[in-house]
C-alpha cells in the first residue's frame, strides 16, 4: 500500500497543476478582469437613456437634426416639379416623369418625415412624461416638429400610415392633424412665430381662408421680415440640395432655364433651407383676397411680397457649372439668351446668367417680377394676376420643396411600407402617384427648344429659347388653389 508521502512525491506536479487550474477557473468565473464574455454596446441603450438627467432636452437636438434631414429631402420635390430636371446618375431620371413615379423610387423622402414624426411622438409620449422637469420651450419645439412632420407628409404624399399596422391616412387628414398639433404647441413663447407661420401654411392647405389669414397677418405684424431658417452642419448633416446642385461633379440637378437666375441658391454645405418667410405670408394673404375676388387687395399683397423679396440678400459665387444636358449638350448658360415661358409668351431677358463664371444669386428669395408691372395688370385680367401670383410662389419658394405641392402632384409611400405593413396592399390609397390631369405628359414640363442653343464647338446658334409649357399659365387657367379661386 502506498503511503501518502509517496503519493505526493509521485503525483505532486500533477496535483499542483490541478490545484492551480482549479484556482484559475474559480478566479476567472468570479473576476471580471479575466472575463472575456463581458461585452459592452457602444451605442446608447434604453438603460443608458433612463440615466439621462434631462432626457427631453437631450433629445431636442436629435429632433432638430431629423428636421434638417427632412427639410433637405426637398430635392425630391424639386426634381419632380418643373423647377429642376435630372442630368446625371445621382438621382433617378424617372422623377422627371411624374406619372412614372412608382413606390420603389421614394426612399428618404418618405422615411425621414416619418422618422421625424415618430421620434417627436416618442419624445412627447414616452420621454416628457418621465422627465421630472421638462422645459416648456423644449416641449413646444418637439410638438412643432411633430406638427411639421404631419404637414410635410400631407403636402408630399397621397396618404400614409401613422401608426404600426395603420391604414393609410389621406393627405387632408394629415394636414388636419398637423393643425391640431401646431395649435397644441401654442402660438406664444419661444417658438410662437414659427408655429404661426406653419399654421398659416397648414390652414391654407386645409382651405381655411380665415385662419390662414389670421396667422399670416400675425406673423407679419410681429416681424415684417420674418424668416425661419433650418441650418445644416457642414460636416455631418449637410444641405443635400447643395450637394446635387454644386458639389457633385455631375451637377445632376439642372434648373428650368427661366429660373436659371435663382440657381445656385445654396452656396455651402451648411447653407440654410428656409422653412417659412414673410413673403409666403404676403402670398397667403394675396391668395385669400383673390379667392374672394378682392383683386386690388390681393394685388397689393403680391406687390408687398415682391418688394420684400428683392431686398433679401444675394451672394456672389464662382460657379463652374457648365449647364450640361444628360447627353452632354449645353443648356442655356449665357446672359444674352432670352427666354419665353411658352410659345405664346413674350421673350424676357435677364433670366439666364453667364456660366461658368462669377454669378450673383439670391440666398433667401427673389423674383423676376417687378412691382410696377404687377400694378399695371388690370383687375379684370384675373388670369394674368394669377399667373403672376403662381410665378411669385414658384420663384420665392424656389428650392424649398413647395413647387411640387403647388402643382398638385402627390407621391406614393415607399414599397417598404407597402410590403411591411399588413394593412396596406398594392393599389390602396397612397400607393400610387397622383398627378393632376393638367400636368403635361412625360417630362414635358422640363423641356424647351432648342434643347441646346449651341453647336458642337460651343458657339451659340440662337439667343432665343422657348419653354414647352408654362406651368404657371396652366395653374392660373385651372385656378389651382386650396382656397378655390
Amino acid at each position, binding site marked *: 500500500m502506498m503511503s501518502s508521502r509517496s503519493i505526493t512525491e509521485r503525483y505532486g506536479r500533477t496535483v499542483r497543476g490541478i490545484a492551480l*487550474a482549479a484556482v484559475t477557473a474559480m478566479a476567472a468565473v468570479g473576476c471580471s478582469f479575466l472575463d472575456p464574455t463581458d461585452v459592452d454596446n457602444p451605442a446608447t441603450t434604453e438603460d443608458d437613456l433612463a440615466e439621462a438627467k434631462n432626457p427631453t432636452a437631450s*433629445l431636442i437636438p436629435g429632433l432638430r437634426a431629423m428636421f434638417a434631414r427632412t427639410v433637405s429631402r426637398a430635392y425630391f420635390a424639386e426634381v419632380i416639379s418643373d423647377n429642376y430636371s435630372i442630368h446625371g446618375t445621382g438621382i433617378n431620371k424617372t422623377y422627371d416623369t411624374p406619372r412614372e413615379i412608382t413606390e420603389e423610387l421614394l426612399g428618404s423622402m418618405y422615411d425621414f418625415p416619418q422618422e421625424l414624426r415618430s421620434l417627436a411622438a416618442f419624445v412627447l409620449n414616452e420621454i416628457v412624461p418621465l422627465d421630472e422637469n421638462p422645459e416648456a420651450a423644449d416641449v413646444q419645439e418637439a410638438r412643432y416638429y411633430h406638427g411639421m412632420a404631419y404637414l410635410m407628409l400631407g403636402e408630399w404624399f397621397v396618404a400614409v400610415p401613422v401608426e404600426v399596422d395603420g391604414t393609410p391616412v389621406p393627405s387632408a387628414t394629415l394636414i388636419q392633424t398637423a393643425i391640431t398639433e401646431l395649435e397644441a404647441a401654442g402660438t406664444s413663447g419661444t417658438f410662437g412665430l414659427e408655429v404661426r407661420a406653419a399654421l398659416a401654411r397648414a390652414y391654407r392647405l386645409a382651405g381655411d381662408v380665415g385662419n390662414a389669414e389670421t396667422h399670416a397677418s400675425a406673423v407679419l405684424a410681429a416681424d415684417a421680415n420674418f424668416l425661419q431658417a433650418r441650418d445644416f452642419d457642414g*460636416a455631418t448633416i449637410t444641405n443635400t440640395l447643395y450637394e446635387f446642385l454644386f458639389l457633385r461633379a455631375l451637377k445632376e440637378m439642372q434648373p428650368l432655364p427661366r429660373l436659371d437666375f435663382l440657381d445656385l441658391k445654396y452656396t455651402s454645405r451648411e447653407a440654410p433651407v428656409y422653412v417659412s418667410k414673410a413673403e409666403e405670408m404676403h402670398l397667403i394673404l394675396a391668395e385669400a383676397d383673390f379667392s374672394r375676388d378682392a383683386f386690388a387687395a390681393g394685388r397689393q399683397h403680391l406687390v408687398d411680397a415682391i418688394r420684400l423679396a428683392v431686398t433679401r440678400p444675394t451672394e456672389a459665387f464662382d460657379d463652374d457649372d457648365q449647364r450640361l444636358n444628360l447627353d452632354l449638350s449645353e443648356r442655356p448658360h449665357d446672359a444674352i439668351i432670352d427666354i419665353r415661358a411658352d410659345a405664346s409668351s413674350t421673350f424676357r431677358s435677364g433670366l439666364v446668367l453667364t456660366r461658368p463664371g462669377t454669378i450673383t444669386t439670391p440666398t433667401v428669395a427673389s423674383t423676376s417680377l417687378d412691382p410696377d408691372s404687377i400694378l399695371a395688370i388690370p383687375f379684370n385680367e384675373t388670369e394674368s394676376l394669377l399667373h403672376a401670383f403662381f410665378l411669385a410662389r414658384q420663384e420665392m419658394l424656389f428650392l424649398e420643396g413647395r413647387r411640387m405641392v403647388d402643382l398638385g402632384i402627390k407621391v406614393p409611400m415607399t414599397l417598404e411600407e407597402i410590403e411591411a405593413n399588413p394593412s396596406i396592399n398594392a393599389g390602396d390609397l397612397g400607393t400610387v402617384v397622383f398627378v393632376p390631369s393638367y400636368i403635361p405628359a412625360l417630362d414635358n414640363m422640363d423641356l424647351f427648344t432648342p434643347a441646346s442653343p449651341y453647336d458642337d464647338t460651343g458657339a451659340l446658334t440662337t439667343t432665343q429659347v422657348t419653354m414647352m409649357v408654362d406651368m404657371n399659365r396652366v395653374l392660373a387657367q385651372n385656378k389651382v388653389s386650396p382656397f378655390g379661386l
Partner: protein
Amino acid sequence: MQRSKLARALWASAFAGALLLLTVAPAWGQATGRIQGRVVEERTGRPLEGAQITVEGSVRRAVTDADGRYTLPNLRVGTVTIRVRLIGYSGRGQTLPVSAGLPATANFTLARSAISLDEIVVTGTGREVERRRLTASVHVINTQEIERAPVQDIAQLLQGKVAGMTVNATSAQAGTSSLINFRGISSVFGSQTPVIYVDGVRVDNNVSTASGTGGEQSSALADLLTSDIERIEVTKGGAASTLYGSDAASGVIQIFTKKGTPGRTRITARIEQGFDSPELKYMFDTGLIYPDDIETGFDTNGDGTFDTPADPDFLKNNFFQSGHFQNYYLGVSGGGESITYAVSGRIQEAAGVQLKNQNEVFSMRGAIQAEISNKTSVNFTANYTRTEFGRLFNGSAIADPLTSFEVGDVFFFTGENNFDDALTTFILPDIDEVVNRFRFTSGASLIASDLFRARATVGLDYRTNQQREFAPIGAVIISAGEGRLQRYQRDFTSVTGDFAGTFSYPRTGILTSDFTVGVQGFRDDVSIVNVIGTTFALPGAPDFDEAATIVATEGNTEIFSGGVYFQEEIGLWDRVFLNGGVRFDANSTFGDKVDVEVYPKLGAAYLISDENFFQTALGSVVNTLKLRFAFGKTGKFPTPFLRDRSFNATQFRGESAPRFDNPGNADLAPEVTSTIEGGFDIALIDNRVGIGFTYFDATTRDALFFVPEQPSTGLGTQLRNVGEISNTGIEIDANFQILNTDKVRWDFGLTYHAVDNEVTSLGGAAPFNITAQQRVDEGHPVGAWRLFTPFDSNGDGKLDDSELTFSGKSPMPTKSGSFFTSVTLFNNLTLSGSADWATGHEVFDFGSIWATFNNIFRRELVEEDYEFPIRFDTDGNEIGPWSQNRARSAFLLKGDWFKLRNISARWSIPASVYQFLGVDRATLYGSVHNVKIWSATPLIDPELNGLSAGGSLQLGGRSSVTLSPPRQFRFGLEAVF
C-alpha cells in the same frame, strides 16, 4: 445572467484545461532506444518523402527525408507500435521491440491508394481521427498540391481544389481578395466566408476591411499568405462542422503550418521572379469608346487645329503595364530529438498591372515544437506580416480612371480635352493601405496513456490596417476640386481558447469507443476609426489638421462565443463507425431570452469493402468502398449588439443629436442549418481510380433577415430569425492514376458541384433587396436577379411597357467544377495544369449602364447581332432606345465561364549539378496563373465581384469596368542546404 455565468465557466474551463496540460510532469531518466528505417513505394520501389511516422501512445513522431529515411530516437525501451502515413498511400503499422542497445529497424512499403483512409484529420472531429472513421465530407489539401501552383493568397490557393466550393475573385487590384462559399448561400444577413483557423486559432476572415473605393473591397484574406503551409483541412458546414457551433454554418478552413522535422538543420532559400501581365479581354480601349476623337485627333494647345493624334490603344499603351514581381524566401528548420523548429522570412514586391498599383510584403515566422516528455508536447508559432498595397479608385467611383475611360466619361470628369491630360488628372489620388498582422499560437498535446489524450490551444490574431486615401486639389472626386483626405483604420483582435480530451476504451477488439469532451471559445474585438478631411487651401500632401472640415467616426464591436461539446465514436470490427455528438453554445450576440443553442450531430460510416462477401463478389474491381451518412446542425451567430434597442447620436451644429438606431430583439438567436448528407468513397481498378460522391440537403431555419420595421415607425430594420433557406446538391471529386511506372506518373483529377438554392420561407417578412437588383423572395434563389424588363403590353409585338421581373437566375453558379492533371517524368520533372468552370448564373454589367449616359451601347459595339431594346408607345410608334433604368434586363448577361487557371513545371535539378556547392536539393520551377478565359459574354469577366455593396452578404456577380486578375508568370529556384 445565467447565460453569462455559463459562458464564463466555459471560458474558464478551456483556460484551466490548457494550463493543466502544461503543468503535467515530464518523465525523465528512463532507458531509451531508437528505431530507424526507410519508406518506399510498393510498385516502383522509389523512396517516399514526407511520410509521417508516429508512435502509438506517445507524442513522438518523425518525417521521412528525400531518401525515404527516418529515425525515432529516445524511445522508451519495450514494445512499441509505429504507424506510417502518407497522402495518396495506404497506411501501415508495425509492432517491434526497442532495446537500449542497437537500433531497431522498421522499413515500410506503401501501396498507392486512390482514397487515403489512413489520413489524419482534426478539424471538427474533436481529436485526431483517421479518414476511414469520418462520416461527413472533409477535404484535405496537402503540401504537394500547395507547391504546384505558387499563388499569392489563401483564396487563390483553394480555387478549383474543393468540390462544393466557389471562389470568386474581386479584381486585379492588390489587397482585394475573393468571395468564398461552400454549398450555396445559406444566409442572407452575413458574410458567407468560411471561418478560418490557423494552427487552431481563429483568424480575421473579413472581406471588407477598409472603406469603399468604388466597389472593390480590401480583404483580410489578401494577407493570409501561402508560404509555410503544411496542409489545409476544409469542412463545408453540416455535421463536419457541428463542433464549431454557432460559428460554422459557412464551413471551416483550417490551415496547419510547418513546425520543422527532427534531423539536421535544413536551410531553404527560394528566389522567385516574374511578371504580371494584364488580362485585357474585357477592355475595349479608346479605339472603340472614342471613335470620333480617334478620327479627328486632339487640339491639345487650344489653337483650333486638331493636330495631335488620338491613340486607339491609349489604355494599353499608357495605363496598363506588365508589372515586375519578386519574392525572396529564406527558411531554417530542423531540430534535435525532442525539439524541432522552423524559422522563415519572406520579402515580396509586385508592381501590379495598372498605374499606381503596388504590393509589398514582409513576413517573419517562427515555430517551435518540443516534447517535454514522452507524453507531452508543446508548440508555439509566431507570425508577423506587414503588407502594403497601392490601389486606384474603381468600380462605381467617378474617380476611377479605368471605368471613366471605358464608358466615355474622361473628358467630362476632368475637363481636359485629350487622353494624356485626362489620365494625368485621374491618377492624382493615392490610395495606400498598410496591414500589420501578428499571430501567435501556443498548443499542448498530452497522451497520458492509451486511454486518455488531450490537447489545448490558446492563441491570438491581431490585425491592424490603415487605408489612407488622398485626393489632392484638382483630383476628380465627388467634392469637386477641393482636396479630400480619408484615413480608415481597423483594429482586429481575436483570442481563441480550445481544450479537448478523449477517453478511448475499449481500444481493441470488436468494439472500440472514443469519448471526447471539449471546451472552445473565442473573443473578437473590432475597432474602426474613419476620419475624413475635406477642403485644403494649398496643394501638397497635408495632414488632417490642415483640412477645413474634419469628420471622424468610430465603431466598436465585441463578441464572445463559447461552447462545450461531447462526442462519442464507436467502431465495430474496424469497419462500421458510428458517432454522435452535441455542442452547447453561448454567445454574446444572442438576445436576452436566448440562453444556449444546442447543435447535435449523428453519423455512420461503413467500410463495406472490408467485408469478406464484398471481397468475394467485387474485390477484383473495387479496392475500397466506404458508405457514409451524417446529420448535423451548425449555426451562424447574429451581428453583435443587434439584440439591444439603441439610440445613436450624430454631431450636429455643436450638439449631440440622437435618433433611433436599432429597434431591439430579445429573441435574437443564431440561424441554424441542419444538413443531411450521404455518399461514398470508392477506389477502383487496382487503386487507379478514386471517386468521392456526396449528396447534401441543408436547410437553414430561423434564418436572420434584416426585417424592415414599417417605415412609419421611423425605426429602420431589425435582425430577426424568420426565414428558411434550402440548399441541396451533389459534390463529386475523382482522381485517376493513368500511368505509374518508375519513369512516368500521370494523374488526372476533377471536381463537380451542383447546388439548388432557394428561399423556402420569408416567415411573413416582406421580400427585400440585397442590392438594387438582387432580391430575396420565396421560391427564388437568394439574391435572384429582379430588374426592369421591357415587355409588350398590348400584343402588337412591340415593347411598350416595362416592369420589375425576376430573370430566373441568381449571381451564384448552380454548377461548377475543375480539372487537374499532373505528369511526372523520371521522378524529377513534374508538369501540371488546372482549369475550373462555372455555369447556371447571370452577371450584371454596371459599366455598360454607365456608358449609356454617353450614348455608348457597349454590347452593340462588341456583339454584332445585338440590338438594345427599342421602346414603342401603345400605338406602335417608335420612341427610341429604352432608358437604362427601365430596361435593366439588357445589362444582365450569361455568366458561364471556363478558365485555364494554371500551368506549371517543377524540375528537381540532378544532384551532380550542384553537389559541390553544399546544396542538398535544388528545384527549378515556372508557372503561369490565370492563363486563359473563355466566357459566354464578351463584356465582363463573369467570375468577378467588382462591385460589392460593402455590406455583410456579398454574392458577387455585379461589376462595373473591372480588370481581371492578371496573368502571373513566375520563375523560381529553390535550394535546400
